């Protein structure tokens, strides 16, 4: 067991343990904060695997943007601060069984399939220079399509969250200013 494997094992234990805490904790805000720990440990794992640019993108986007967005969602839905008992549904034991079965199948298949797969880790393979060259040389068309996807999701999020536009209900066609869908939402804000 080399030093890289020891470091990766420790980081993996941290990632899996905090992931378990994300799905089992009783406090919503703590779940989001454990998600930060899990993503940070995974970023460390990417660093060990010499994928340094992916690691920094992981820190920037997942830890910096997505978790903050999730915290905003928790705040905007007025989630209770502190322990809440009804975060788990009634079928949690069935869910645990399904998860354990999935883990057993995946671990068995992957470990048996890649039993003698070793790879030497050479630094520099995942630097920003290499990845930038391959993104803008080979994968430039998917990159541009991805920007269109981001634009579409931006427009979709705006359309979903605005309350003064929307489909006009057939019964209230005479009042275009109050389309009915956002009537309660305006009162809430």
């Amino acid at each position, binding site marked *: 067991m080399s030093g890289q494997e020891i470091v990766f094992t420790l980081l993996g234990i941290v990632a899996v343990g905090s992931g378990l805490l*994300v799905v089992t904790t009783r406090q919503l805000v703590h779940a989001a904060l454990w998600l930060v720990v899990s993503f940070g440990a995974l970023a460390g794992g990417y660093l060990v695997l010499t*994928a340094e640019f992916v690691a920094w993108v992981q820190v920037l986007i997942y830890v910096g943007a997505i978790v903050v967005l999730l915290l905003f969602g928790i705040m*905007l839905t007025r989630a209770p601060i502190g322990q809440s008992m009804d975060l788990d549904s009634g079928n949690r034991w069935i*869910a645990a069984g399904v998860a354990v079965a999935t883990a057993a199948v995946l671990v068995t298949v992957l*470990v048996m399939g890649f039993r003698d797969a070793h790879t030497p880790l050479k630094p520099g393979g995942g630097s920003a220079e290499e990845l930038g060259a391959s993104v803008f040389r080979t994968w430039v068309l998917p990159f541009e399509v991805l920007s269109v996807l981001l634009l579409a999701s*931006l427009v979709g*999020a705006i359309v979903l*969250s605005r309350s003064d536009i929307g489909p006009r209900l057939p019964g209230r066609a005479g009042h275009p200013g109050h389309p009915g869908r956002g009537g309660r939402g305006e009162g809430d804000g």
Partner: protein
Amino acid sequence: MHLAYPLVVASLLFSIGVYGVLARRNAILVLMSVELMLNAVNLNLVTFDIWWRDRLHGGQVLTLFTIVIAAAEVGLGLAIVLLVYRNRQMIDVDRLRALAEETGGDVRGVRGDGEGESEGEGAKDGDHAAVVPSEGSTT
């Protein structure tokens, strides 16, 4: 480095995400579990990219794309969750069973008819009586 270490970590993270999606009731916690599953997939992609020593770096570039798609997904998902919260005042995925919003009498009548059909033939008459006055009120 033996390839089993990142693969085992990735499969454990994926199954933790499966458990979270199935067992959690809060919609935001379900979104967090989806993020865990996406991270497991990213770890697999990076691992196989390193293993194959791909000169085009397809695995790592696809990982970047997956991260961007996850950001778009969580933005849209939170917009939907906030819309549900604005209309229902709760985001329990267990209790969100209706497919139509309760906006007026006509919609509620249609929804009651649909539930009666799922229960069986015996409830037909009562539901029919509930639908008829609402149709009369809309016309």
